[in-house]
């Protein structure tokens, strides 16, 4: 069984067909790339998969269960987490708190214990604090834990977004242009971390990216979108030589 599957997935915005009959399949522990020219509908795919938009028609399944019509928080809890293209951190919260928000769903104590500071509150909060700092170690950001998120440099904000998504314990992680605005060294580090995340957490990763060296390097399979249509799929090698893809990018 595929981890994530979409079938005939389509969406229209007021007559504009933003996405038409999209089929994608993602297996466990796969790193898959979603590429295409600007405006091809890549982020729309993410918005559909995470429940931000409702598809006009088609099916989406996570581990065989339909996720159509579910709210974003329900979809997240069932195992899909994402980052945003135009960074959407909780800017006035600390870096650690940004991650703790994601852990909310897996914490046990109830409102009453919180308001009256019962032992379960202390126990869970302590556990979560340690865990949040462990997450930060993935990118070597543990020293930034108590800073406000808005004070982080741009590259680290992108990294924090990834960690925040990861902290929701997803089965599949959707990364929307994770390397945007990063310098080559940071991109190199990011690539290694993405692989490490996959190995350490045993999750699948679907990523949108414009940096072709990154995509070709770490993705095992690629899907190519153009004007809302899937025009090609296959290994990086196949995509590189696909004439349709080349013409879409060069705009023949």
């Amino acid at each position, binding site marked *: 069984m595929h981890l994530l599957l979409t079938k005939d997935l389509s969406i229209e915005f007021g007559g504009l067909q933003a996405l038409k009959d999209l089929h994608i399949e993602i297996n466990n522990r796969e790193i898959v790339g979603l590429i295409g020219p600007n405006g091809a509908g890549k982020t729309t795919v993410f918005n559909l998969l995470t429940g931000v938009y409702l598809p006009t028609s088609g099916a989406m399944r996570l581990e065989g269960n339909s996720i159509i019509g579910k709210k974003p*928080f329900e979809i997240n809890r069932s195992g899909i987490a994402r980052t945003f293209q135009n960074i959407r951190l909780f800017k*006035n919260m600390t870096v650690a708190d940004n991650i703790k*928000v994601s852990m*909310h769903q897996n914490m046990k104590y109830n409102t009453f214990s919180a308001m009256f500071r019962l032992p379960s509150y202390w126990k869970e909060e302590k556990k979560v604090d340690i865990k949040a700092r462990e997450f930060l170690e993935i990118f070597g950001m543990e020293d930034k834990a108590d800073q406000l998120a808005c004070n982080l440099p741009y590259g680290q904000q992108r990294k924090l977004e990834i960690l925040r998504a990861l902290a929701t314990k997803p089965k599949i992680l959707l990364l929307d242009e994770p390397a945007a605005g990063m310098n080559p060294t940071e991109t190199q580090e990011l690539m290694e971390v993405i692989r490490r995340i996959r190995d350490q957490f045993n999750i699948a990763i679907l990523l949108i990216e414009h940096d072709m060296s990154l995509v070709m390097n770490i993705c095992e399979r690629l899907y190519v979108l153009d004007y809302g249509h899937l025009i090609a799929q296959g290994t990086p090698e196949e995509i590189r030589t696909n004439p349709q893809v080349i013409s879409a990018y060069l705009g023949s």
Partner: protein
Amino acid sequence: MGYLKKKTGVYYLINAVLVFLLFFVLLNLINNRIINRTSTQILTLICINIILAVSLNLVTGVLGQLVLGHAGFMLVGAYTSALFTMNIGLDLKIAFPISLVLAGLMAAVFGVIIGIPALRLKGDYLAIITLGFGEIIRVIANNLKITNGAMGLSGIKSLSTTKNPSPMFIYAYALAALTVFLMFTFGRSRHGRAVIAIREDEIAAESMGINTTYYKLFTFVLAAFFAGVAGGVFAHQIGVIDPSKFDFNRSVEILIMVVLGGMGSITGSVISATVLTWLPEQLREFSKYRLLVYSIILILVMLFKPSGLLGRYEISIPKFLDKLFARITKKTAKTKTGGA
């Protein structure tokens, strides 16, 4: 971490001691008639306004949703609790606390009714719908038999008497302290983090697994509950209530306490509730200009310091003592090494 927890525990203890200390000082002053009846009333009103401001702060400061009808919930609570103690025929000492719980619950029910349509949606609907609620609930109270229309209810018995002037103050103080404590603990928990995350970015919060509608509604209803309780205390404190006592201007007064103190700062709300209750009492001859001045303050604060005077900063006496203590030990350590 263990150290941190211990330190937090000490902070809680110091704060608790300070709150009790202040309470016993005030109580003694009241019981020995050093603080007269009028001043006791003002002190009680300050406590009531603290409950109102701190609870509104939860929605407007922490959740970031504007509420323009907090007085409406106060009205619901005031009438509920007054009607209960007037009609139940129980001893007031027993009936009053029960009536306060009922007052809070009834206000919470109204909170759910208007919160569901407004908070399911993204956008500023809560502001307008609470504004409408505040106006309409008065129209309804003005026209119902049970609320005795525009005449309102009179002869609501107070626990305080000339012989024993303190019970209402005790209630108000204890409830204010409890509200402050609960708002603080709620804000610094996984639930509070969820609420702040919604303020910061609703879509991101929902994508991280936060049930945003639930938390928005919960926060709003919690605030409505406390406003209802405050209304119940208020009704029994002043003895006579009518719909005009809970008009839009009162909602504005509570809002300005929150805005001025700092959106999201509990201590800020406490301070500005205290000052803004006490000051107008001293400047009664200027009461004509009060709302004009308030409106100008609102605009100026929003234009030049939108987060309010304290912002999200919390004043903490234990932290202050801690720093002071650290400085003193440093100094003594220095003099010691200097001497050696």
